[in-house]
């Protein structure tokens, strides 16, 4: 019998639970798993009673037929009800449209609206990375402007119903403007209320310099630190050399140790190119041993980029699969959802676009010019102080996030992975193909690697089932 709770949403004995349209099934060590790309729970292993119920659902049986046909359900109808509810709550099956709507509303309630500001503190850098898309100039943002950016972002966020602003202190290399940023942080934290909108800070650094105050703020939880690391030793150094010459890995490795000694786990950002992709397994090991989250981002070409960096989908896929194979063999206890991110993708977050460009974020350059992405700073859409920051982003005509939905992109609209990749970075696609309405240049690699990633998540669940400790 459906529980009273489910009855309120029209679930009855005659209900025939259905399988979500894009749901994918597979086997890991003989156990069935499901991944629903429209769902919010990632990969789920289906064993025991839930397997019996899933088999019945796949045969199109009604709840009444399940009650009569599944031996344990005859004896314990309440167990059938509990299993159906949990499977529906995990979005593995659908009971009624009314219950599906209820689940979506519950998810929406829990969401905080965040606006992201990329603050380009300087265009200068102490590294000379061949793939960098930031045009190097000797420009530094002045304190007065930086302070105004925070004020204007808070004001605009409050006006547009956002709950918080996350400011990414970036560059160039932000530690080169640390004196200004430290003052900004101290002043902003002292003045905690910004039109009722919370403000949080993240520093995106190359990790070559780690000012003591920055380390202290991170250890106090006042800021988070993301650190660019493209590999271990040689694999990093070949694409992230010091401006003065020589590799930068040794300096960064030492600063990661300083952070860890203070209990600070920086988040590792890796740009994957043809050059460093053979070193990804070693990098994964480095991060997992240190319990550092890491993300693989894929190289975005600019006019000045050297040819040898260009990713070639087949070899890139092979190196990624080798890396995920290594992780599978040395399965960590820490949840993979927390530990690693493949590009902009997250198996628990379905999306119609790759990122929140032109709706949930803005970039402000050293002179206060606003743009929709740090990759597009040459195309400003307004100036801080002259316009409402969020309105400038929403009203610009460079990119239409509604038209750019993955359902509107030919080929993508019929792809089973569309709500996982969201179509990929639209700016990169536009540079490659001259239109946003085209599959990503990385499309083939995504399609090859995503099944491996889903299997990896399933393997971690098997690991938990066998007694591995789930830690978050």
């Amino acid at each position, binding site marked *: 019998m459906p529980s009273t709770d489910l009855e309120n949403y029209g679930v009855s004995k005659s209900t025939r639970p259905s399988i979500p349209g894009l749901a994918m099934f597979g086997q890991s060590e003989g156990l069935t798993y499901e991944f629903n790309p429209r769902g919010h729970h990632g990969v789920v292993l289906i064993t025991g009673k839930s397997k019996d119920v899933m088999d019945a659902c796949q045969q199109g049986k009604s709840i009444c037929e399940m009650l009569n046909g599944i031996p344990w359900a005859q004896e314990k109808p309440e167990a059938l009800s509990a299993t159906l509810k*949990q499977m529906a709550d995990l979005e593995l099956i659908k009971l009624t449209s009314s219950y599906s709507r209820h689940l979506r509303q519950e998810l929406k309630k829990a969401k905080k609206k965040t606006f992201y500001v990329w603050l380009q503190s300087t265009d200068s850098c102490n590294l000379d990375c061949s793939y960098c898309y930031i045009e190097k100039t000797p420009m530094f943002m002045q304190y007065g402007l930086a302070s105004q950016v925070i004020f204007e972002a808070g004001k605009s966020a409050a006006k547009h119903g956002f*709950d918080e602003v996350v400011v990414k202190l970036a560059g160039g290399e932000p530690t080169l403007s640390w004196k200004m940023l430290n003052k900004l942080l101290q002043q902003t934290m002292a003045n905690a209320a910004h039109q009722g909108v919370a403000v949080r800070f993240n520093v995106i650094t190359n990790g070559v310099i780690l000012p003591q105050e920055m380390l202290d703020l991170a250890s106090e939880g006042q800021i988070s630190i993301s650190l660019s690391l493209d590999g271990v030793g040689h694999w990093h150094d070949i694409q992230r050399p010091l401006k003065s010459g020589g590799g930068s890995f040794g300096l960064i490795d030492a600063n990661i140790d300083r952070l860890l000694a203070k209990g600070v786990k920086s988040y590792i950002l890796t740009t994957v190119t043809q050059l460093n992709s053979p070193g990804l397994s070693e990098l994964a090991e480095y991060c997992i041993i240190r319990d550092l989250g890491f993300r693989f981002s894929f190289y975005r070409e600019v006019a000045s980029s050297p040819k040898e960096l260009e990713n070639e989908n087949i070899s890139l896929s092979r190196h990624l699969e080798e890396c995920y194979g290594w992780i599978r063999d040395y399965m960590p206890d820490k949840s993979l959802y927390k530990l690693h*991110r493949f590009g902009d993708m997250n198996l628990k977050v379905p999306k*119609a676009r790759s990122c929140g460009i032109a709706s949930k974020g803005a970039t402000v350059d050293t002179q206060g010019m606003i743009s929709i992405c740090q990759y597009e700073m040459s195309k400003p859409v307004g100036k801080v102080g002259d316009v409402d920051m969020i309105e400038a982003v929403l009203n610009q005509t460079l990119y239409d996030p509604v038209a750019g939905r993955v359902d509107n992109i030919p080929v993508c609209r019929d792809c089973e992975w569309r709500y996982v990749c969201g179509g990929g970075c639209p700016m990169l696609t536009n540079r490659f193909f001259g239109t946003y309405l085209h599959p990503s240049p990385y499309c083939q690699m995504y399609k090859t690697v995503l099944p491996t990633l889903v299997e990896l998540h399933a393997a971690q669940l098997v690991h938990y089932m066998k007694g591995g400790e789930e830690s978050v």
Partner: protein
Amino acid sequence: MFDQETGLVFDTGEQAVTSQCDECSECDDCDCVDCTDDDDVDTDD
């Protein structure tokens, strides 16, 4: 978690949309903006 009663095994962590999760700062820490709201995704109701 492994629910012995139903036989379902799933990750119990918060959804990795950082802004609503204290433990994970994934989206905050990436050099992208957070992904779009999932209610943009078509349902197959």
